[in-house]
């Protein structure tokens, strides 16, 4: 894990910086995952992921996209250690995944805020659990609250905030951990378009000024392209990787400005066809 921190001190101003010379943050080698589902009293095996091989380099922003039920969230949860991995083929920063590793931070689709904690104490929560010194917690929390645009709301309770603001608190809490690898499960999936754009912008800024690796699950293709260095397209169940696409857009990026660029729309059309194909195959198979 120390390797990640030292190597990634290079400024991140162009996507080419993410070169193969960097060590891998995530390595998945020929990985299969199955669930045992009880159905009418009998156990049935449901194949979720099949022969997944994937490398995410340190400092890279990689999105998983695919039809619902394709296992992209399962894979993310395996990386996070929230779902036990079913073979030795998965390595995160060189070690087997385990929930609670301090170099991994996980962000959920829902804000998962503690309703009795004020905004600042929610941001602090993760650091508190991870045993970061009290003064440092305050400094980091205040800085991140400002960066996600919630200055002035430090003392508010989650119940007083809008959905978008709550998710910003969750974003601040995730970044405050200063883990080198962030795993995010559709963090903006439940937001309206306007709020989503704001949060995507903030995430891109936070990512570009840090040296973190982000694995991001989404069902929104535009979001995947705008944020990522690479987009991994999954097929329907059982999930296999049908496309590993390097996004040829330079950094730093402005999500809103991308909408006006032809190259963005070309990428979108290209990947949309891949996704539609995955969807069609999934439908045919079922």
């Amino acid at each position: 894990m120390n390797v990640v921190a030292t190597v990634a001190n290079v400024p991140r101003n162009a996507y080419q910086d993410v070169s193969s010379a960097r060590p891998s943050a995530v390595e998945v080698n020929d990985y299969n995952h199955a669930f045992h589902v009880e159905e009418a009293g009998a156990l049935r095996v449901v194949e979720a992921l099949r022969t997944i091989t994937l490398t995410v380099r340190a400092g890279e922003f990689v999105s998983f996209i695919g039809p619902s039920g394709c296992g992209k969230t399962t894979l993310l949860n395996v990386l996070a250690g929230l779902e036990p991995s079913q073979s030795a083929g998965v390595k995160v920063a060189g070690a087997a995944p385990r929930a609670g590793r301090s170099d991994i931070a996980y962000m959920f689709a829902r804000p998962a805020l503690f309703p009795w904690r004020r905004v600042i104490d929610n941001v602090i929560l993760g650091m508190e659990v991870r045993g970061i010194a009290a003064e440092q917690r305050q400094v980091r929390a205040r800085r991140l609250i400002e960066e996600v645009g919630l200055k002035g709301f430090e003392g508010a309770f989650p119940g007083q905030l809008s959905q978008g603001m709550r998710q910003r608190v969750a974003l601040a809490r995730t970044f405050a951990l200063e883990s080198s690898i962030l795993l995010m499960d559709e963090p903006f999936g439940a937001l309206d378009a306007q709020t989503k754009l704001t949060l995507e912008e903030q995430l891109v800024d936070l990512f570009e000024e840090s040296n973190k690796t982000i694995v991001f699950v989404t069902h929104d293709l535009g979001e995947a392209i705008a944020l990522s260095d690479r987009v991994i397209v999954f097929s329907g169940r059982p999930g296999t990787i049908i496309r590993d696409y390097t996004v040829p857009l330079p950094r730093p990026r402005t999500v809103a400005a991308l909408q006006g660029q032809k190259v963005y729309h070309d990428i979108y059309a290209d990947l949309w066809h891949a996704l539609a194909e995955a969807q069609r195959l999934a439908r045919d198979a079922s």
Partner: protein
Amino acid sequence: MNDHLLELSKQRARKARQKSLTIWTIRIGLLVLGLVMWQVAADRKIIDPVFFSSPSEILEYMRQHFGDVMAKHALATLTSALGAFVLGSALAIVAGFLLVRSPLLEDALDPYITLLNAFPRVALAPLFIAWLGIGAASQIVTAITVIFFIVLLNVVAGAKSIDRDLQLLMKSLGAPASVQFRKLVLPWAVPSIFAGLKLALVYSMLAVIVSEMMAGSKGLGAQVAYLSNTFHMDGVFAVLILVAIITTLLATGMNWLERRLLRWQQN
């Protein structure tokens, strides 16, 4: 524009005041009406004053008898009730979290908990009086058996309703069980525990008074039993009013504490 808004907010405040005035007029009016009807009915012998007494007689009884002696009885009842409340609630909270911690234990004990919870536990009072003698001990034990299950079930319900996302978050942060308990399980269960405690306080008074009525010479329950056996209905009503005032004050105190502790719930 600002003047307009100011005027509007003044109007609203006036309306709110008027509304609350109306509500209070109705409340006090009903009370006065009831008391007047009672008094008139008793004066005209429509109801038998021997059994029903009358507001003026009750007031007269209070004036004559509510002194040191009644205060001593009230104190005895209150001491037993609060003692049982503190002990019973503490036991129930600890037991509740143990049950949540161990689903196996909960499964094993489930039929007994259901049975004992459905059982009219005040009916155990004579047993405890026989075992522990007349006095505070048997009253407190009776009250504990009554409130223990109320609080226990609320603790279990609260601690089991934790948002799954929050649990997963704690897991992803690598929080050990003790930290999860302190930072998530316990605070999450507080509203539910409080709901149980509020009930328990009132039921603790109830159980102690019932126990006092069965045996003994001290306490408000004993007073009610004695006064009704000797046909002092004015006294019975006077003591009952005192009981009502005490329990209302206790409940108000709990509500105040709840509002202070659970300020985050008010949005």
